[in-house]
């Protein structure tokens, strides 16, 4: 984290934002969480990290275990009540909160109301910065051509597509090369990737080949699950393409090794 840019856009108010860390960011890539905090603060938000958050319940939900998903959803809803906004650096988790929580409580009027209230206030990080906070540029530098993978839930459940591109365009030194089939699933799919490893491997190999063919030096995306999958496959295939979450680049926090690289190999 080098310099502290001025917030751009309508940042006169100072909304209170609850950061939904996501379990993968918490464990695998705290840097993304800190990048999110920085971007939100730069956009004029007061950021808090509620204590009681664990997992959004999507693995249970998509495995047909609605009962467990409901328990975890209630936990999240309670932990994040009272914030002006709830923001997370993952289209997949935020899609779960936004689109699926209300459905989980279809037959429970009281919780449905609380789920709807959460859904109205929750956003994926990059679209929040762009659409809600009106951020149009960041002050960051990244000297590389990058390509961008559109993770499915963010794209289709939350309409995240233009916003990351618009923000990345303001990063000095960065050139975007569009990825062929950028909107096709990378084969992660949560538990899918370990339940059907052969199919997942085929999908992520196609994706990695598109990334390599793009000629870009860096792959960016907005969802750590997909990024772990693609980085893991690119490394196994021996590709040197670096992988970061878009928030890390936007926050100028790329002084840590890329995803899947250590101090020794970066």
């Amino acid at each position, binding site marked *: 984290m080098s310099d502290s840019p001025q917030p751009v856009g309508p940042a006169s108010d100072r909304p209170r934002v609850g950061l939904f860390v996501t379990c993968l960011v918490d*464990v695998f890539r705290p840097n993304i*969480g800190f990048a999110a905090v920085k971007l939100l603060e730069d956009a004029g938000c007061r950021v808090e990290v509620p*204590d009681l958050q664990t997992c959004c319940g999507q693995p249970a939900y998509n495995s047909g275990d609605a009962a467990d998903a409901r328990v975890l959803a209630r936990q999240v809803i309670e932990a994040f009540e009272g914030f002006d906004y709830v923001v997370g650096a993952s289209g997949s988790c935020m899609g779960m909160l936004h689109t699926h929580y209300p459905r989980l409580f279809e037959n429970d009027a009281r919780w449905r109301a609380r789920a709807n209230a959460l859904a109205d206030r929750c956003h994926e990080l990059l679209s929040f910065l762009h659409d809600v906070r009106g951020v149009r540029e960041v002050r960051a530098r990244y000297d590389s051509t990058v390509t961008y993978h559109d993770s499915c839930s963010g794209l289709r459940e939350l309409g995240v597509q233009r916003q990351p591109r618009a923000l990345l365009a303001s990063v000095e030194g960065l050139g975007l090369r569009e990825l062929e089939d950028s909107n096709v699933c990378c*084969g992660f799919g*949560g538990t899918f990737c370990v339940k059907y490893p052969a199919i997942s491997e*085929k999908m992520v190999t196609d994706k990695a080949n598109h990334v390599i063919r793009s000629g870009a030096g860096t792959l960016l995306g907005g969802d750590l699950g997909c990024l772990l999958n693609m980085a*893991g496959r690119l490394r196994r295939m021996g590709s040197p393409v670096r992988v970061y979450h878009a928030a890390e680049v936007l926050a100028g926090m790329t002084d840590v090794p890329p995803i899947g690289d250590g101090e020794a190999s970066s």
Partner: protein
Amino acid sequence: MSGPAPRSRDFERRAYVEIHNPNLQEAMGLAKQGFVGKRASAVAAVPEWEQLRAAGREIKEHTLAHLDWYLERFEAKVRENGGHVHWASTAEEACRIVVDLCRAAGARRVTKGKSMVAEEIGLNEALADAGLERVETDLGEYIIQLADEPPSHIIAPAVHKTKDQVSDLFHRHHRQYGLTERQTEGPALVAEAREVLREKFLTADVGITGANFLVAETGSTVIVTNEGNGDLTNTLPRVHIVTAGIEKVIPTLDDTATILRLLARSATGQEMSVYTTFSTGPRRASDLDGPSEMHVVLIDNGRSQMLGNEFHHMLRCIRCGACMNHCPVYTAVGGHTYGWVYVGPMGSVLTPLMIGIEDSGHLPNACTMNGRCAEVCPMQIPLPDLLRVHRERQHASRLDAPRARMMLRAWAFLARRPALYRRVVDLGARALAMLGRRRGRLRWLPLAGGWTGSRDLPAPQGETFTRAWRAGRRPR
């Protein structure tokens, strides 16, 4: 419910085989590009596409809400036109009706247009058992008949075959007609198939087609094709039999026009299919050609049960194939992997309803929930949500994979106890980080073979976000 014997239990093994089958991969790679690109341009050329989708959905929803009324109206109109209507509640009953009609017509040779419902009820086997010669007249169906394979796609049944494979197949089978040269170009292959089929068209006793729509207003059955084979199948033989699911009925010709606009664009990226054929009753005195008998077999086979539950959405399906063309799982593994008639996303929803979830448990699970199918479905069918309903049913009846079930329960147990959860993930993150410290990733991890078999596991940075945040340690 019957129909062809399911092989969906074999999904996982078959997927593995097909992913490593270069012919399949070549064929699917080409097909995927063609279908996706053509649909995209066709849809982009219709600015009111989303309104059109909504209108199509509305027509189907309305019809399904009054299904019995529209079916009765359709039946009355067919009768008025001099045709016959038969009702079949099961696959067996439907096959029996068709076979009896063929026998009554004294038939020996039957020509057939492409019909998915015929596959669903196992009509091909029934005709063979009855000693009838069946000639498939759709080029794709003809190819797979020669190869003795089921269709692998609902509109392009031979999409899994490369041109080379088709050349070989024709070369082998057409010798008996004196066609000994191995053709390698598309047009020459088509011409050769035409030549073989022409003779059969002229000597068939019964023609069987499916229907894309049944128009209640006029009693017409409608088929769309690109080869014109359907026209020859329903006009040349003495008897024309239409097999159709009861959900195919729609109220009016206007409604037909609306849904036709959605169908061709979604299916092949065409504005209209080359042939759209309306069959309204048998030949009238003033007609130049046409069958002297026309029968419509209306098939339920589980559909009326779907009307009353969450799966009613699926009855809107117009069998365009867009969902499978855009499904990264389908295009990776091909249609045969699904092990039954319907394939891709729509198949993964329908098959468990038709053959039982016990025999098809993989289908709703082999999906990343990426949502591309629902995005392109012209009928706005929420396919991933319906797959999730299957998963919920499996979970409720303990039919989900025991190991996955256990792991998930353990995860949920932890996630519900934030304090315990913190201790476990803080420890886990540190341990994994230690293991992968030097390279930043792990090549192998016990119990994680599903992941590390084909990709490295990026190592955690070390301290979890939450722990660092609470301690006030922010990177600078």
